[in-house]
């Protein structure tokens, strides 16, 4: 590996934020799973009201980085994190912070649609009950389902199991479930990878609508998708120089800028499809 990309050398990793409001400022110095160093030296800001895409070849740590943002990695045994994640200026890895509370503000949509084995209605109301919301539950469920562009398809069968829906509908149900409590940020981990092209299209449209209200961070392996939906794009790559497979941030830019005129050689090669 010729190019080392530390935060201090600030070659490319110094983010270009255009003075926008940064909701989550994620600075990963080192991230380990046991002895395995999964990610190093990546500084990714997530700006308010924007879609930030994480792209890169598989194994580059883009999902791992995303899961740092609401401490989902805490569930993995041997997880160690060196760096900080500032959410509205507060370090969510501070030892006084309850990861459970973090996840209430930073919701997540997963790669595989994962509705609970309960009715559509209860799936969406789940988060509301978790937050001990007593009032207007039906109204909130409806508006969440409308927000996820699913209302018209399910309004007559809210009592049916969430598992009875098609894959794309299930994923939109999961989005509805996540936005029902109006979190600040929505993390989406390859939300379309298990879906067909038409369902994918719908989710992408939805993301564009949702960013009016929510800040979104999305991991995708699909470059066109990043181009279509993202305002900012972070390109990560794998460093194999020390014998491991450590991901790091190569370039973070406005999406247009990154795809049309990347600064880094690796980014150029990647978006030309020379490796994947």
């Amino acid at each position, binding site marked *: 590996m010729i190019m080392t990309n530390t935060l201090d050398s600030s070659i490319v990793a110094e983010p270009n934020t255009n003075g926008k409001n940064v909701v989550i400022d994620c600075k990963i110095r080192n991230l380990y799973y046991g002895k395995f160093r999964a990610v190093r030296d990546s500084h990714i800001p997530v700006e308010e009201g924007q879609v930030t895409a994480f792209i890169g070849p598989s194994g580059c740590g883009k999902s791992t980085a995303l899961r740092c943002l609401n401490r989902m990695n805490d569930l993995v045994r041997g997880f160690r994190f060196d760096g900080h994640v500032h*959410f509205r200026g507060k370090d969510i890895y*501070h030892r006084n*912070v309850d990861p459970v509370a973090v996840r209430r503000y930073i919701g997540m949509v997963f790669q595989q649609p994962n509705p609970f084995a309960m009715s559509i209605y209860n799936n969406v109301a789940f988060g509301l009950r978790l937050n001990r919301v007593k009032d207007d539950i039906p109204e909130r469920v409806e508006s969440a389902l409308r927000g996820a562009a699913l209302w018209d398809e399910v309004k007559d069968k809210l009592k049916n199991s969430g598992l009875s829906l098609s894959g794309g509908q299930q994923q939109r149900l999961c989005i509805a479930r996540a936005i029902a409590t109006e979190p*600040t940020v929505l993390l989406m981990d390859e939300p379309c990878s298990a879906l067909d092209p038409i369902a994918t299209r719908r989710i992408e449209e939805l993301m564009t609508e949702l960013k009016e209200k929510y800040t979104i961070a999305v991991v995708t392996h699909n470059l066109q998708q990043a181009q279509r939906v993202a305002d900012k794009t972070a390109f990560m790559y794998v460093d194999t120089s020390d014998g491991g497979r450590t991901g790091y941030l190569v370039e973070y830019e406005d999406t247009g800028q990154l795809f049309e005129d990347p600064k880094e050689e690796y980014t150029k090669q990647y978006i030309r499809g020379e490796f994947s």
Partner: protein
Amino acid sequence: MAITLEGDVPIDSVASPPSRLDIAGDRTFRGLTYVFSWMTIFLVLYIVYEIAGKAFPAIQEYGFGFVTGTTWDANRGEFGVFPEIWGTLYSSILALMLGGFFGVSIAIFLTQDFLPPKLEVVFKNIVELLAAIPSVVYGLWGIYVVIPALRPTANWVHEHLGWIPFFETSLSGPGMLPAAMVLSIMILPTISAVSRDALCSVPHRLKEAAFGLGATRWEAILGVILPTSATGIFGALVLGFGRALGETMALAMLVGNSNQVSLSLFSPANTLAALLANNFPEAGKLEEGVLMYAALILMAITLLVNLVGTAIMNRAQRRLSGGER
């Protein structure tokens, strides 16, 4: 103390950090599950402590002679459980031979595609149903069906082959053979189910490899599949043996409760578990302590056998999951 994440969240958001109640509930519930987990360990220790503690006076008084003694006379205060230990082991070994042969044969027959899948399920359910019948019902059945059915044959064998030690007495009623036969029926489902699992976990590609070399079905079974699953099947036999050692009712009803050491299949005998079942309800203070000693011996034997069985099963799992050790 804790840093809150509220602040300038959007006004219509209902997101809130978990309430104090949620957090307290979470801690309590997790603590509770932890406590109950530990209670399982304490329960086992407490069981050993109770039985050993109650047996202690008898151990002091009778010492090791209790294990080798052959008389049981509450009136004279003379106690020995050698015949019961012998009967326990003898009946269990007989049952294991019968039940093991049947159980493993059935497991092979029901896993190696001899039958269409639907019939396989039918037979599997029938064998599992054998395990659902309560042992006291088997005992009743043994008294009124097995013993009368065995008696003519057994006595014919005794008359003609009586010089063989196994047949040196006649079958007058309860005895070792009917007890062992019923016992074998009772352990058969365990052996067959665990062996089935072992046989099913043999990778399909191994069988294909054998067939690919031109082996017949049985050459594949005997040459490849059984050796591969041998550890698991052996574990099944040990677990079945453990079950036979501790089984009570069928033996208490069928073995004859007679304090003697005999090789004969037709003579009555006794086992540790049957001794407990028959003598405990009417035992006086003295005999009670002695029975606790007998219970302790039974516990030691079954624990040992079960430990060996579990260890073998764990090894079988490890072997198949790759790490040959």
